[in-house]
C-alpha cells in the first residue's frame, strides 16, 4: 500500500490508518459513525486504534472552534495518550481536552458553570491535599464513629460508598446511616476550609450535567465527541455522566474498554456497566479479537481462566509457554528461586532477552519488598511500580520527567518538544495570564532548561534548582497546584542522600518508563496496560488470590479477572510460582494449597 503524501502533519493519521485495514475489528472501529463501544481484549491494539480514530475525527468531522474530549483513568494514561496523539500530529489545543474524569469535571463543568448553576461551594475553592483529606477524615471518623477506630478500612469503605450511592435524596443513601453521616461530616469539614476533593469534583460534575440541560448544551457545543478509554475502570459516576451527555445530551460517544480487565471493584468500578452500555439500542459494539501480544497457548490458557470463549485469536506465529514452579518453603523461597533460577534460565532461552523484558507480578507492596530484597541480594537492578514507589506520578511529575528527558538528550532531537513543555508550564501557572508575567515565566523556564542540559547531574541537585528558579514562585502563587507541590516535595525527599533515589540522575529519572537492564517489579493492579516478554506471577497461593477476604461472588469474579490480567501481560512466557500455603504476619500458616486458578491451568496442561 503506497504511502499518501502527508506534508500536513494533521494528515499523518491516513498513513497510520493503513495498518488498521488488515484487522477487521480495528478497521470497523476506524469507520464507525455514531455511538460506538469497542470491546478490546488484551494486546488488541486498542490504544493505536483509539488514537488514529481521534486524529481522524479531528481532521474530518469536527471543525474548529469545536473539539473532542478524551477521558481516561489516571494521569499515567493521560500522559501516554497525549504522547501517542502528538506522534500523529495532533497538538494539544484549545479544542482538545485530554484528561482524567475528575479533571474533566473540574475544568469543563465545575469551573465554568458551577457558580452560575448555584453550586454551594466557597469561591474560590482549593483542591484538598492528601494530608488535608486525611486530617478531615480522621476528624470526621472520630466524631461519628469513635476516635479509636483504624482509619484505613473506613476510608476505603467511605470512598466505595461515595462512588456507589450517588443520589443523596434517595433511600439507598441510608443503606448504612453511619457511613452516610461520616461522609456528611467529612465533606462539611472540607467545605469549611474552602476545599473539595477529587470525588467531589466528579460527583458535582455528574449532578450538574444531569440536572441542567443548558450545561449539557454548552459542553456539547464545545465537544461534539466524547472519547472514553478504559471504560471498565471508571465506575458509576462516569457512566452516568456519559449517559447524560451522550444519550441524553447529544454528544457522540466513542468508548473503549474490556470488562474482563476490570480489577478496581474496591474503588467502585463495575464491569457490567460497559457491557450494559454496549447492549443499549443505538450503540454499535465492535469487538477487537486479534491479540498481537500473547502466544497462542497463553491465549488459550487465559480463556480457560476466564471461563468464557471470547474468540480471541493470536496473530503472532508463536505459541508461548506456561511454567509452573512449586516452592515448598514459602514466599521467601519463591523470591529466591525467581531471582536465582527462573530469571537466569529465562534469559538464557533467548539471546536478545534482558532484565527489562521481564516482570515479576505480585499481590501487594509487602510481597514487593520481599522480591526487591532478593533481587538486591542477587545483584539485579530493578524498577518498582506499586504503592511502595517513592513518589506519586502526578501531571507535574510527568512534566518534570519530560523536562528531564529534554535536558538529558531530548534537546538534540527536539523530543519532547520545548513548545509542548512550555505550553504545559503555562497551564500550571493559570493565574498569570498577563502577557508580561507569561513572558517572564517562559524565559525563566527556558533559561533553566538550557543551562541544565546534563544527563549525569544528580536528580536532587537538578530538582532543587528547578524549584528555586521556577517551581518555587509557582507553588506559592497557584492555589490549584497545592497537590502538585506536595508530590514534588515527596520526589525531592526521595532523591536526597540517604533516600531511595539517591543514585538517580537526570538521565535515569527521564528514562523511568522502560529501562533495558532493570527488572520490573509490579503489583498485579498496576500491571494493567503493560506488556513484557516474560511474566513471573509470584505468590499464587489460595488465600492470596483469590484473597481469603473475597467472599461475595462479585469479589471472587474480580480476583479471577486480576489473575487473567496478570497472565495476559506476557508475550512469550508465563511463570506461576506458588508454595501451597500462606503465612500471616505472625508466622501462622494456612494450608489452602495453590490458587484455584493455577490448579485449573495445571489440569489443562495435564489433560493435553
Amino acid at each position, binding site marked *: 500500500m503506497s504511502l499518501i503524501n502527508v506534508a500536513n502533519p494533521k494528515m499523518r493519521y491516513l498513513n497510520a490508518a493503513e495498518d488498521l485495514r488488515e484487522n477487521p475489528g480495528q478497521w470497523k472501529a476506524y469507520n464507525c459513525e455514531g455511538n460506538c463501544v469497542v470491546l478490546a481484549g488484551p494486546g488488541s491494539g486498542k490504544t493505536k486504534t483509539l488514537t488514529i480514530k481521534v486524529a481522524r475525527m479531528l481532521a474530518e468531522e469536527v471543525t474548529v*472552534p469545536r*473539539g473532542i474530549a478524551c477521558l481516561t483513568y489516571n494521569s499515567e494514561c493521560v500522559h501516554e495518550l497525549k504522547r501517542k496523539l502528538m506522534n500523529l500530529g495532533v497538538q494539544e489545543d484549545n479544542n482538545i481536552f485530554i484528561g482524567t474524569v475528575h479533571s474533566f469535571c473540574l475544568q469543563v463543568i465545575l469551573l*465554568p458553570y458551577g*457558580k452560575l448553576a448555584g453550586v454551594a461551594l466557597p469561591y474560590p475553592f482549593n483542591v484538598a491535599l492528601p494530608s488535608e483529606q486525611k486530617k478531615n477524615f480522621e476528624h470526621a471518623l472520630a466524631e461519628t464513629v469513635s476516635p479509636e477506630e483504624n482509619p484505613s478500612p473506613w476510608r476505603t469503605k467511605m470512598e466505595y460508598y461515595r462512588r456507589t450511592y450517588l443520589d443523596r435524596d434517595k433511600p439507598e443513601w441510608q443503606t448504612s446511616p453511619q457511613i452516610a453521616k461520616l461522609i456528611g461530616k467529612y465533606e462539611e469539614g472540607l467545605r469549611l476550609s474552602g476545599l473539595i476533593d477529587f470525588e467531589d469534583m466528579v460527583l458535582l460534575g455528574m449532578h450538574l450535567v444531569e440536572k441542567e440541560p*443548558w450545561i449539557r448544551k*454548552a459542553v456539547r*457545543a464545545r*465537544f*461534539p465527541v466524547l472519547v472514553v478509554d478504559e471504560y471498565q475502570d471508571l465506575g458509576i459516576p462516569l457512566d452516568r455522566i456519559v449517559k447524560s451527555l451522550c444519550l441524553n445530551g447529544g454528544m457522540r460517544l466513542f468508548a473503549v474498554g474490556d470488562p474482563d480487565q476490570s480489577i478496581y471493584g474496591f474503588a467502585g468500578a463495575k464491569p457490567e456497566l460497559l457491557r450494559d452500555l454496549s447492549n443499549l439500542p443505538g450503540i454499535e459494539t465492535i469487538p477487537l479479537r486479534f491479540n498481537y501480544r500473547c502466544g497462542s497457548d497463553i491465549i488459550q490458557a487465559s480463556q480457560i481462566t476466564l471461563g468464557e470463549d471470547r474468540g480471541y485469536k493470536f496473530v503472532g506465529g508463536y505459541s508461548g509457554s506456561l511454567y509452573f514452579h512449586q516452592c515448598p518453603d514459602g514466599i521467601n523461597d519463591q523470591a529466591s528461586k525467581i531471582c536465582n533460577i527462573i530469571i537466569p534460565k529465562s534469559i538464557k532461552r533467548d539471546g536478545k532477552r534482558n532484565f527489562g523484558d521481564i516482570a515479576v507480578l505480585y499481590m501487594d507492596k509487602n510481597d514487593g519488598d520481599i522480591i526487591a530484597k532478593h533481587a538486591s541480594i542477587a545483584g539485579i537492578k530493578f524498577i518498582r511500580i506499586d504503592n511502595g514507589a517513592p513518589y506519586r506520578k502526578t501531571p507535574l511529575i510527568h512534566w518534570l520527567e519530560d523536562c528531564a528527558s529534554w535536558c538529558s538528550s531530548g534537546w538534540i532531537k527536539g523530543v519532547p518538544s520545548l513548545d509542548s513543555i512550555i505550553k504545559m508550564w503555562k497551564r500550571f501557572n493559570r493565574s498569570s*495570564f498577563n502577557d508580561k508575567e507569561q513572558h517572564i515565566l517562559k524565559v525563566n523556564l527556558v533559561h533553566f532548561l538550557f543551562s541544565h542540559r546534563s544527563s549525569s547531574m544528580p536528580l536532587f541537585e537538578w530538582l532543587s534548582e528547578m524549584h528555586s528558579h521556577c517551581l518555587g514562585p509557582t507553588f506559592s502563587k497557584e492555589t490549584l497546584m497545592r497537590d502538585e507541590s506536595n508530590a514534588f516535595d515527596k520526589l525531592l525527599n526521595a532523591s536526597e542522600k540517604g533516600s531511595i533515589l539517591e543514585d538517580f540522575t537526570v538521565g535515569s529519572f527521564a528514562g523511568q518508563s522502560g529501562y533495558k537492564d532493570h527488572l520490573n517489579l509490579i503489583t498485579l493492579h498496576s500491571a494493567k496496560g503493560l506488556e513484557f516478554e516474560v511474566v513471573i506471577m509470584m505468590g499464587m497461593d489460595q488465600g492470596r488470590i483469590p484473597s481469603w477476604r473475597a467472599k461475595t461472588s462479585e469479589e471472587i469474579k474480580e480476583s479471577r479477572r486480576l489473575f487473567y490480567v496478570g497472565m495476559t501481560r506476557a508475550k512469550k512466557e508465563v511463570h506461576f510460582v506458588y508454595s501451597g500455603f500462606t503465612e500471616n504476619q505472625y508466622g501462622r500458616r494456612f494450608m489452602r494449597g495453590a490458587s484455584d486458578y493455577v490448579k485449573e491451568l495445571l489440569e489443562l496442561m495435564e489433560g493435553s
Partner: protein
Amino acid sequence: MRISRILIQNFRNFKNLDISLSDQSVIVGENKIGKSNLLFALRLILDPSLPDTARQLGFEDFWDGLSRPLSKEDKIIISIEISDFDDDDNLLSILADCLVNHDPMISRLSYVFQPISGLSDDPKKESDYEFLVYGGDSPEKVISYDTRNRMPLDVMPALRDAESDLFNWRYSPLRPLLDDSSSRISPDLLSSIASKISAANNGITEVVEIKSLAERITTKLEELVGSYQAFETKLGFTPADTEKLIRSLRLFIDNGKRGINEASLGSTNLLYIALRILELEQLVDQNKRNHTFLAIEEPEAHLHPHLQRLVFQKLLRSRTNQSEEPDECEHSKFTTLILTTHSPHIVSVSPIRSLIALRKTVEGNATEGVSTSNLELSENDIVDLERYIDVSRGEIVFARGILLVEGESELYILPAICKLLGKNLDELGITVCSVHGTNFAPYIKFLGSKGLDKPFAVLTDNDPQTGKISIGIQRLISLLPLFEPIEDLTNISTDEVKRLGKAHGLFLNDHTLEVDLFKCGQHKSICKTIIELSDNGAAKKRATVWNDKPDELDIDRFLKDIEEIGKGRFAQRFSSNISGVSYPNYILDAIDYVSNKCR
C-alpha cells in the same frame, strides 16, 4: 447572535454609559459626542486587527471628569453582553465559558485597564497600568486573538478611501473573493484560457508598432545602464501564467466600458460595501470565522439619499422576517451591522428598536446614551412609528425637542408664531411633528424616558361636547398613565386633568386650533385669509362680517368654511398673514415648556 448591552465606564467621553441593544444598531448623536470613541471601545474587545500595543491606553483615555492624579481605584471598564447565540453550536462553544446568565444564555466580554495588581502605592506613570480582556466573571478566562478572530469587529472608518483600497491589491476586498473562486476552477480550463491569452499577447506584441516600441524601450534602458544591468521589457495584456491569471481580473462598470477608477465616488463606495459584505460571507463559508460585527461610520458618505435608503433598508432589515429572499436571510445571519450616522435617510429606514442616541448628560461633562431597544410597543405601534419616521425622514430622531401636533395646520402655524415671537425653532433644535391624527401614545412612548428621552410637548384640540366630558379631556385621561400611575381615573376633576397634563407637557386648547386663534385676537388675519382663498361667495361674506364683529362667530359654519378651502392650504396662507402679538395660550405654554427643557 447580537450584542445586547454595552457598558463603558471612565473611558474618554463616557463616565458611565449603559445601553441595551436590539438586533442591529444605528447610532446617532451630534458631532464630537463620542460615536467614534464608542466604536473604538468595541474594538478594544473585539478587533483582532488592533495590535495589543494599542490596547495599552494612556492617561488621556481616562474620562476627563476623574480628578487627577488618578487613584488606584480608577479603572477603565468596557463590557459587552452577547445574546441569542445558543442556537449556533460554533458560537456557543466559543462563548460558553463566558456565561454570566444561563436562562436566557448571556455571555459577557470585558476590557479593563487598571493599575497593575500588587502595586502598593497609587499609580504614577502609564507603565503602572495593564490591560486585560477576559470573559464572564473571571479575569483568568483570557480572550485572545483566537477568540476575536472567530467573531471579529470589522470597522469601515468614516474617512475611507474606497477608491484606493479597491485598487491596492493587498487591501482590496476583491482579492479574497477572486482567490477563492480561482481555487475552484479546474486547472485544465485555466490552462486553456491561459494559452488563449498567450496567443492574444503574441498577437499584439507582434504588431509592428508595438514591437518596435518595446525594442526602443529596451534599447533606451541599455543606453542608460549598459546591457549587463538593463532588463528586457515586453508589452502585453496580462501575464499568461495560470496562477496570475485570475488575479489580473479587473472590475468594470457601465457594460464593461469603464474601470472603477472612472467610477463616481458614490459608485465606488457602493462597490466597496458590496465587496466587503461578500468577503465576510465567504469567510464564514470557509469556516475562518463564525460571525462578523460590521461597523460602518457614516455609511451615507457619497451616496444619494435614495441609494442610502435602498441599500440600508435591505441591510438593516434582512435579518428579521422582513426580507423576502430566504438566501439573503441565511447569510445575513452571520453579520451584525453597527452604524454611526448623521443621515436622516438612513434613520428613516432603520427598525424602531435599532436606534441609539448619544447626548450630553445633565451635568454636561460626559456622554450618555439612550436606546429604543426595550420599548413596549405593539406590532401596530411599531408599524405606525416606522412609517412615520420613514416618511418624515427621521427628523424626530435628530431633533433636540419636539412639539407633537395633530395635523398639517399646526405644522405651518407654529413655526410662524415662533418666528414672530423671536424664537427660532432651528436654533433651538425643536421640530414640529404631526402625528396626522390623535394617536399620540406610541410617539409619547418613543420620546419618553424609556425611549429616546427627549423633551416634548403635545398640542391637542379640546373638542368640547355638550353634556359630556370633552374629547380632549378624555384623550388626556388616556395618555396620563403613560407618565405616572393615576389612582382613580373615574373620579378625577377636569381641572386636575388639565393641571397634570400641563405638568407632563400635554397642552389643551379651548375648542380647536382655528377657533382658539380666532378668539385670541387673530380674527382679522383669519378673515383676510378666508377672503383671499375661498371660492365660496357666502363664505367670503361671512368672513367680512366676522372681521368687524368677531362676537357673532358661528363656530360650526366657520369650521366648515375653512374645511372647504382645505385646512392645510388655509394654514399655509394664514401663516403669512399672522400679525399682532396675541396667540392662544396653550401654544405659548407648549413652546415655553419644550424650549426650557432643551439643553
